[in-house]
């Protein structure tokens, strides 16, 4: 099979390229029908109970995702000028498309429950029109601070910050609405600082910025990789081949993904970035081999036949193990991760096949004249040779020290792994310097929080929420949750009842309590509706049959760990204080959904990593027909994964979605060098029947190719580290770490182990896969 494929490519290069181009064009034609989905909610199955309940709560209480606009002004935002500016800004915002005008929360839109003339109760807008004096401004701040419903939420107590909450028809307009609001505040804002924050905005903006990043990260990586290859091989036409393979496999994978009706989610947008290095790896091995032997064969086709022959088995296995790593993602309960895994796996298979066909085909098209200076010259004193010599000497002479050092690394890493903190927060997918992060920090410092969770109290019986016992329980719950520092405020039906009562009795604090009978609760709420209170405001906190109530729990931080603390506290409270009969309590809200999918992802990734680890071990044992070699080949992979994740544990970087998903990439890539190294070391040994000779040679052929790979992939993705999106930085760093660590372990530990145990590992008459060897004598690689 391999012979036929390679022979065909050698004989009909144009046909091979032509067919590949046609198929590529077909897949590229799917791109215009790409559907983008940036909603992290889709990380959960559509029928996941958490998600369904969130949806239910949103409909039941008419809740919308919102973005928060923060105005910070020193020494105070409560001046005539600032409030009038905010008034005008708010009224322009109401004109925008895609927002729920009735539910905007701003000084000019929220109602104040207060006493009117003659001891009357009035509910009217806090700021009915533009104001004329600073005294009016201060009065408004006073009213906010006197209302448990508004205090800390609409403005900071010191008056330096004001928040506007803009509810959206749907989350996916938040990026564009935020842009329009930014335009309005730039025009009308005056001297204050304006921040735009909110989880939906972070999620939606991440989606849009992600595609922009992808549009330049992927080509930038390709260009850098190409330049590095050019440096190594000094022949443009040859170097083009890996680029073609990388681009084609990416286009095939993405095209098929779109063709099969899948949406391009945050995860799948990363497919090109994952496929490029994986597909380039194979090509580099081929070109490296071609390069190093061209001078000897002098004929393109002979050199190509030799290279493919030498590399077919290791390439097949490196590709299969990487496929195994990504296919295992199908075991996770997270749909976008499953899609991602499946299509990366498909892309790897394509890349493997194209490496075996496109590389030879393009190689054949390069004229022999162009290659007259091509090929390895004696560079025994070149930098790469010197480095390889060092490795050879170190692992040959200090073999025991290397094994000891590796053991220490494993122990230190094992400790580091226990320090890993699982945490995520979509806002933190942006770097600290990003406006969204800045806004998040500023607003949550001044105000009660931009992250909204909901605690829903449910009963079968209408009017149950008017029961003073239930309200008292709800109030206790509020006080309990507020003990968490991250909880900036809680607001519920309780607060409305208490506020009405407080104002009804002439701002008497003693009356700001839950009444002791249900009739009075009912009448207080009726009074709210009679006094100009918008019933829709009420029904954000309770359903109109009073069978369900909704407690707004505002958080200053959306870190999953923090949200989890609040949820844990609520569970502890529930366990210690049984709710009144017939009442059940359940969480909803975007931050809550995020912790749920994180939980599923962490457990899902764990089992996926475990299973692919076992599969890879079995594959290695099969490849080498030896459990011993199977185990040894797992070392670079094991140490790389442990070292990288231990490093994450030690530096305290949260184990988040990108970090979790990268474990399968780490697994898939860090086995590759070991396969090449061991397979070819054994081949060499079988051929030469001399461990010494094989040990020397392995640093030439395989060593050279591995080093080139390390440099090309590690450096190729360095630009990603300067991205403003943290997951991109993470991915770029991972490529570097995977290459360097697994490269080092392969080139130091594996030879050290081979040298130490060479008698046991290389019995006098090794059989292994000697039959794979090329009919070449002398300094064969």
């Amino acid at each position, binding site marked *: 099979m391999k012979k036929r494929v390679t022979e065909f490519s050698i004989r009909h290069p144009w046909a091979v390229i032509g067919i590949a181009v046609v198929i590529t064009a077909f897949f590229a034609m799917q791109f215009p029908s790409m559907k983008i989905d940036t909603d992290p909610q889709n990380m959960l199955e559509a029928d996941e109970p958490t998600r369904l309940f969130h949806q239910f709560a949103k409909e039941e209480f008419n809740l919308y995702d919102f973005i928060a606009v923060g105005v910070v002004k020193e020494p105070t935002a409560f001046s005539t000028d600032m409030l009038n500016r905010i008034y005008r800004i708010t009224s322009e915002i109401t004109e925008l498309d895609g927002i729920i005008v009735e539910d905007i929360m701003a000084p000019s839109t929220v109602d104040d429950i207060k006493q009117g*003339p003659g001891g009357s*109760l009035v509910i009217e807008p806090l700021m009915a029109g533009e104001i004329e004096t600073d005294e009016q401004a201060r009065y408004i701040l006073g009213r906010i601070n006197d209302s448990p419903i508004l205090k800390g939420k609409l403005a900071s107590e010191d008056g330096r910050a004001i928040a506007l909450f803009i509810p959206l028809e749907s989350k996916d307009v938040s990026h564009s609405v935020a842009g329009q609001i930014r335009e309005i505040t730039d025009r009308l804002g005056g001297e204050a600082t304006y921040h735009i924050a909110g989880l939906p905005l972070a999620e939606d903006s991440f989606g849009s910025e992600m595609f922009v990043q992808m549009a330049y990260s992927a080509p930038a990586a390709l260009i850098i990789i190409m330049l590095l290859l050019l440096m190594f091989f000094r022949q443009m036409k040859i170097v083009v081949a890996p680029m073609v393979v990388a681009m084609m496999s990416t286009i095939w994978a993405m095209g098929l993904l779109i063709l099969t009706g899948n949406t391009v989610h945050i995860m799948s947008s990363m497919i090109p970035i994952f496929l490029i290095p994986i597909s380039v790896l194979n090509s580099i091995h081929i070109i490296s081999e071609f390069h190093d032997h061209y001078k000897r064969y002098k004929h393109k086709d002979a050199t190509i036949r030799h290279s493919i022959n030498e590399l077919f088995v290791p390439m097949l296995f490196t590709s299969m193990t990487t496929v195994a790593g990504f296919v295992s993602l199908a075991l996770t309960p997270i749909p976008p991760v499953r899609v991602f895994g499946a299509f990366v796996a498909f892309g790897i298979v394509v890349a493997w096949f194209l490496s075996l066909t496109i590389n030879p085909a393009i190689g054949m098209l390069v004229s022999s004249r162009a290659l007259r200076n091509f090929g390895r010259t004696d560079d025994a004193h070149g930098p790469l040779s010197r480095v390889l010599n060092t490795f050879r000497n170190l692992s040959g002479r200090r073999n025991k020290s290397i094994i000891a050092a590796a053991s220490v690394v494993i122990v230190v890493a094992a400790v580091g792994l226990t320090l890993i903190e699982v945490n995520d927060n979509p806002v933190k997918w942006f770097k600290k310097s990003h406006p969204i992060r800045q806004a998040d920090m500023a607003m949550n410092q001044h105000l009660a929080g931009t992250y909204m969770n909901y605690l829903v109290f449910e009963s079968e019986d209408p009017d149950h929420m*008017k029961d003073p016992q239930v309200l008292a329980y709800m109030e206790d719950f509020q006080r309990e949750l507020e003990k968490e520092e991250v909880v900036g405020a809680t607001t519920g039906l309780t607060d409305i009842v208490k506020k009405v009562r407080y104002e009804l009795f002439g701002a008497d604090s003693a009356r700001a309590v839950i009444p002791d009978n249900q009739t009075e609760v*009912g009448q207080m709420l009726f009074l709210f509706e009679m006094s100009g209170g918008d019933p829709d405001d009420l029904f954000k906190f309770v359903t*109109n049959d009073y069978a369900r109530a909704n407690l707004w729990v505002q958080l200053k931080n959306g870190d999953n760990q923090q949200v989890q603390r609040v949820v844990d506290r609520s569970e502890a409270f529930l366990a210690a204080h049984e709710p009144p009969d017939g009442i059940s309590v359940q969480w909803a809200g975007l931050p809550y959904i995020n912790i749920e999918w994180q939980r599923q992802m962490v457990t899902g990734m764990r089992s996926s990593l475990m299973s692919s680890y076992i599969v890879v071990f079995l594959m290695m044992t099969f490849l080498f027909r030896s459990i011993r070699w199977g185990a040894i080949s797992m070392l670079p992979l094991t140490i790389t994964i442990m070292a990288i994740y231990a490093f994450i544990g030690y530096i305290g970087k949260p184990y988040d979605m990108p970090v979790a998903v990268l474990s399968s990439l780490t697994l898939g890539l860090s086995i590759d060098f070991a396969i090449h190294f061991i397979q070819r070391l054994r081949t060499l040994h079988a051929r030469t029947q001399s461990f010494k000779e094989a040990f020397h040679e392995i640093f030439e052929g395989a060593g050279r190719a591995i080093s080139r790979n390390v440099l090309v992939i590690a450096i190729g993705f360095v630009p990603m580290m300067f991205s403003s999106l943290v997951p991109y930085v993470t991915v770029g760093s991972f490529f570097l770490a995977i290459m360097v660590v697994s490269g080092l372990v392969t080139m130091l530990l594996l030879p050290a182990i081979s040298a130490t145990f060479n008698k046991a590992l290389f019995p006098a008459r090794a059989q292994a896969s000697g039959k794979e060897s090329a009919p070449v004598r002398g300094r064969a690689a």
Partner: protein
Amino acid sequence: MRKVTTYLILVFTAVLASTAMAASEDATEIMKKSHLAYYYAGNDGLAEVGMTLIDKKGKERSRQFSMLRLDVEEGGNQKYYTYFKKPSDVSRLTFMVHKTSGGNDARWIYVPAVDLVKPISADDKNSSFVGSDFSYEDVSGRHWMEDNHTFVKDSALAGAPVYVIESVPKESYKGFSRKLSYIDKTTLLPMKEEYYDKKGNLIRVFKAEKVEVIDGIATVTVRSMEDVKKGSRTVVSFSSISYNIGIEEDVFTERYLKSPPRKFIK
């Protein structure tokens, strides 16, 4: 020839303008009569009122109350007294309005659970009446002099001839920017009203669902208001209606807020 044309155009314009003016006066007159027919039927009135509030999901809430009305002056000041019966937790709650024509209405509420009578501020006539889609103003009426009225056309609604009249507030108003009323030519009752906001969007629709003649007076016994934007709807039905029963003005005082006039309210 040109002079003749100019002359003709002038005459034509003048005629058109005068008919327009006449139509405008007529429109105002129609609106006034309609207002009187709808809000000032008889000298006083008594009715049992059932209100159903239907939200956009079709969930219903209901209110039930007795309502007394006394016209102090035809087309002018009025007094309203409302005694709530349902929902049960607000039973015995009472509510009173002294409507001052051209001024601010005075409103009081008696909250039995805390035995308190409280004035309710009347600044925003536009706010919802007991949480329904009707505003306070819809209940007690917006004075016809507050809007400019124009006759649009003659038309028919469910086979009955109506005047279609457009009303635009004289001063910018939060409640609506334009209103189209369909006034029954015989009873002069508003059969339908469409309210538009400043962008020209339809925001609310009033409908007289059922008209009955009671004590010789044509009365809208079932009426509805739909909030187009919110998708909610309120249906109000009047029963046990009687007119001219001699309600004393004394009934509309604080004393009766706490204990309803049993003569009229059972």
